[in-house]
């Protein structure tokens, strides 16, 4: 077995192409302006099919998080941090927060996107704490 890896649909492919290039992109509805995530064919605010990709800032805050102590399968090594990230553009995204001291985590802290290879073909967005945005030490 291996970690679950997305098999992107044509609709989703631009998202994963951008991840592979180290960029986070999101769809914006050209009809109502809503920013959509996960990638879709129709806006989940107004159901328009006029969605266009644009670059995202990669900044967000922690809406919630958990330190997984018992891994879902042997393909994951516990502990790891699963979090819900509120992106600066609006949508919420599940991801991992990497290289973080579990005791340093809190709801509301700022994070910044990074990217990690999940397979030969697929790169996924992950996040790191970003204390500089919270007025703290930016670290090395």
């Amino acid at each position, binding site marked *: 077995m291996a970690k*679950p890896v*997305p098999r992107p649909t044509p609709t989703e492919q631009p998202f994963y192409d951008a991840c592979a290039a180290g960029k986070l992109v999101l769809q914006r509805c050209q009809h109502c302006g809503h920013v959509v995530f996960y990638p879709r064919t129709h806006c989940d605010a107004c159901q328009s099919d006029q969605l266009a990709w644009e670059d995202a800032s990669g900044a967000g805050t922690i809406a919630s998080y*958990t330190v*997984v*102590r018992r891994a*879902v*399968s042997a393909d994951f090594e516990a502990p790891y941090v*699963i979090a819900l990230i509120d992106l600066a553009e609006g949508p*919420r995204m599940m991801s991992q927060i990497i290289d973080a001291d579990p005791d340093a985590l809190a709801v509301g802290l700022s994070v910044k996107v990074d990217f990690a290879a999940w397979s030969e073909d697929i790169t996924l967005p992950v996040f790191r704490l970003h204390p500089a945005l919270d007025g703290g030490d930016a670290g090395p």
Partner: protein
Amino acid sequence: MSVSGLGGEFALIGMSESAVGIVPDKSPRELCVQVTLDAIQDAGLTLGEVDGLITCNAFAEPIMYHAEAVAEYIGWQPRHCVTVNTGGGTTFMALNMAAAAIQAGMADTIVVAMADSLRSFMSREQAMVVQSSSGHPHYEQPYGPTVPAYYALIARAHMDQFGTTEAQFAEAAVSCRAWASQHPKAQKRDPISVEDVMNSRAIADPLKVLDCSLVSDGGAAVVITRKDRAKNGPHKPVTLLGYGEGHAYEHISQAKNLTTSAAAQSGRAAYTEAGLTPDDIDLLQLYDCFTPALLIQIEDLGFCDKGEGGAWLASGISRPGGSKPMNTHGGMLSYCHPGNPGAMFGLTEAMIQMRGNAGERQLPNMRTALCHAQGGIMSSHATIILGAED
């Protein structure tokens, strides 16, 4: 909003439970067959007098046409036969679909039967992977979330927003275990303390293993018919007074609100149809897959104000001797949790209590019960309110 249809017109006239907990000698299909026949017998009927079957599928033995396969196994050709799948909420949504089918003339008397064997017919690893497969395959599962992790995200958000503590979540497990210790069939009967829960093995912070429901085998079934046909059975019928549904999302990462669930909608609809309020409910049978889910249901179903669920639990009000008894069989935290059938045991326990057959844990003056089920990660909710016959 709810698909209304119960509203005092329908009654539960039969029920059955299989052995629960660790039941290695019967497959999920065999358990489903057993509870189907037992419930019909309990209703004082023969197979020929029942003309509908609704089941859910089993993770441990998936069958493409599940209900048909159960009917075939016993040589039965019911007029109405269908398999329902809305996760843990399947139980009461199936019950409402049974009422709706009877209302529409598709059948007169229907068995709703469910069984699964997550404990004996799957490895622990298989059970974990199958359950976590409810996550979005592209935007959740790749990160390795477990089902406890999804609920841990909800728990953490509730702690952050309302100051709820891990010890308050633990109170839910303590309450359910206190009831289970009075039930001879419960999978876990040794009383536990808040400290026991707090010191149990960490699973996904802030949840420990005793915050998580059991992994079990078992099945249960009920027989539903129109109230005017329910008079001549061996047991006093239990009336379905109200029903409600709420559907907020499928995946937790798409939830607009992590701390208020669509139980608020399903509960409101059920209370309205029943003409009752939370104060009128004698017995709460809630969906305790994880302690924070239980706490949020208590709030969303109106038994306390939003954010006060922790204090409500810590007051001991839901324990034996308390004024709002909850999960008197021990719930999925201590009685059994065979997956999608889990909430059926909340329903059968309410019927046992209304029949006065609950032994040591029997409640006095049982008039009304509220049973709640949910599927997904606090995603799909169904609430039923039951009334005892005079």
